């Protein structure tokens, strides 16, 4: 399949840093680019900035039309005028992560010498590298301290890393549906996805730009597999049950030999095929690896509490009952580590049957919780209402 023109040609607002940037792996990027979007207005004191950290396949288009897909922003329920993260009140920033494919430096961007895209030679970045790149952006915007850092899933990992690395630059931290390390099960699912990409002949050792054919089948299977982990059994049953539908007429796929297919199969195929229009396979490999490597406690003598000792940041942890990818036990473990560190922590589990994806969906209790927490923090931070 030929990569859509959209992903290749769209210009993303960005800033390029020409100072050398040394990654955790030891490699130094001579320069790097951070693509980002903002909404709302920074106040005169520069104290109302909220950084949103996106998840694995998210991007900087939090609350506006995504230019590649033309769809609404991925967190419009949470971010916008009058929303829990209220852009009438806060200056909201979201950057594409390092290693991403929406304009920030990553595998599909050109190498520093301009000879070819990085491809699989792109260095193995970490969550910490992503956060350090975001910190550069924040400083570039003239912001010394963020009022809040908010993110779900991999975004939540970045929030934890922010709070650990720059405690004085984070007034409030909201790690949502996340964990302080990737579990063996998490890594296992990611590995299935990566193997699906490797198994696609169109992957071509990662140099697929040379032939112009992208590993669409492999990447689609990776997405299908991952998508299952984002949902719950209840949600799948409620949405699809065992309902059948006719085989797609134009399908030449082997599965159509059964003559008909389950609705859930059709749904997953749709998820897979739309995903490959907007995401780069090598980026997927890079970012899933960064998540797998994440183990915050390991950087602090194996004790997560050490990451947060003496912190003045106010934390809100939220998990969802049916999320089995980042289960409540993981959030509770973080909350207890924060207790051991003497931190100010709020923690609730929201009842939902929507699985891990619940953090992106219409969950009124969740939205009320975030809104109230931020209101309380704004009062403590002395931010005018």
């Amino acid at each position, binding site marked *: 399949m030929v990569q859509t023109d959209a992903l290749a040609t769209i210009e993303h607002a960005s800033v390029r840093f020409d100072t050398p940037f040394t990654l955790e792996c030891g490699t130094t990027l001579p320069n790097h680019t951070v693509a980002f979007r903002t909404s709302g207005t920074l106040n005169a004191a520069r104290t109302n900035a909220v950084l949103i950290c996106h998840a694995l396949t998210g991007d900087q288009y939090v609350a506006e039309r995504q230019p590649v897909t033309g769809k609404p922003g991925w967190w419009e329920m949470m971010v916008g005028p009058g929303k829990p993260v209220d852009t009438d009140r806060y200056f909201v920033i979201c950057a594409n992560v390092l290693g991403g494919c929406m304009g920030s430096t990553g595998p599909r961007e050109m190498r520093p010498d301009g000879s070819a895209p990085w491809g699989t030679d792109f260095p193995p970045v970490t969550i910490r590298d992503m956060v350090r790149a975001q910190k550069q952006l924040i400083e570039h915007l003239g912001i010394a301290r963020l009022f809040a850092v908010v993110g779900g899933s991999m975004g939540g990992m970045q929030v934890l890393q922010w709070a650990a690395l720059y405690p004085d630059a984070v007034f409030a931290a909201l790690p949502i549906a996340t964990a302080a390390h990737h579990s063996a099960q998490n890594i296992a699912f990611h590995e299935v996805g990566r193997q699906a990409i490797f198994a696609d002949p169109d992957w071509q050792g990662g140099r697929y730009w040379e032939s112009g054919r992208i590993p669409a089948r492999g990447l689609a299977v990776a997405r299908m597999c991952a998508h299952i982990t984002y949902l719950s059994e209840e949600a799948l049953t409620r949405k699809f049950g065992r309902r059948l539908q006719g085989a797609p007429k134009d399908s030449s796929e082997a599965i159509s030999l059964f003559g008909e297919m389950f609705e859930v199969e059709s749904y997953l195929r749709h998820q897979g095929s739309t995903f490959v229009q907007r995401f780069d396979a090598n980026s997927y490999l890079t970012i899933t690896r960064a998540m797998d490597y994440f183990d915050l406690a390991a950087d602090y003598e194996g004790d997560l509490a050490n990451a947060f000792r003496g912190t003045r940041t106010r934390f809100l*942890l939220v998990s969802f009952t049916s999320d089995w990818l980042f289960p409540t036990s993981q959030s509770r473990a973080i909350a207890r580590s924060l207790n051991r560190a003497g931190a*100010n922590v*709020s*923690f609730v589990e929201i009842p939902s049957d929507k699985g891990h994806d619940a953090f992106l969906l219409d969950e009124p209790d969740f939205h009320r919780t975030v809104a109230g927490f931020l209101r309380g923090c704004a009062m403590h931070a002395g931010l005018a209402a």
Partner: protein
Amino acid sequence: MSTHDPVRFVAKNMRLDLALIGDMIAPGSRVLDIGCGDGTLIDHLFRTKGCDARGIEIDMAEATRAVAYGLPVMHGDADTDLQHYPDGAFDYVVLSRTLQAVERPRAVLAQMLRIGTRAVVSFPNFGHWLVRWQLLSTGRMPMTSTWDRPWHETPNIHPCTIRDFFALCAEEGYQVETWLAVDDAGRRAPWRRFPGLANLFGEQGLFVLRRL
């Protein structure tokens, strides 16, 4: 609410109980309120005394309500979550009308006095004359406005009397810094020097403890 949710002890005169506790806490203190419900006390302590007050609540709906109100509350259980706090993290650790509902009251008290300099504990008094009279006269478990659930449904699995509580403090070596008993109407009972009378007429006991 599902049937699996823990049933909390519902206190009458909640406002009064919290007001009395609030009076015992010095301004600007670090406070942990265990079983904080919707966070009324921590809100009160923050707004009126500038305390750094935080809460733990076992009922998820209540905890969520408190956080959505902007209060620092986490879902947790007195029996299992206190062990995660460092020694001396708080000036006061409050357990309001919850002691009788925890699984291991003695261990919970010990944790409270490990993580806090002082423990503030209130509990409904099972030694109250009406409770005694009902048991004596009917031979059945008392049902009063305070002890208002049948024995097989009550979350209050460890009822105790004011004298029982004094005895436990003596056994554990806790100093009773202040104590008082209030009657059904919430009036401060005038039996300061007579625990026996307080145990008969006090509807609720309220204690401030510290380690000896």
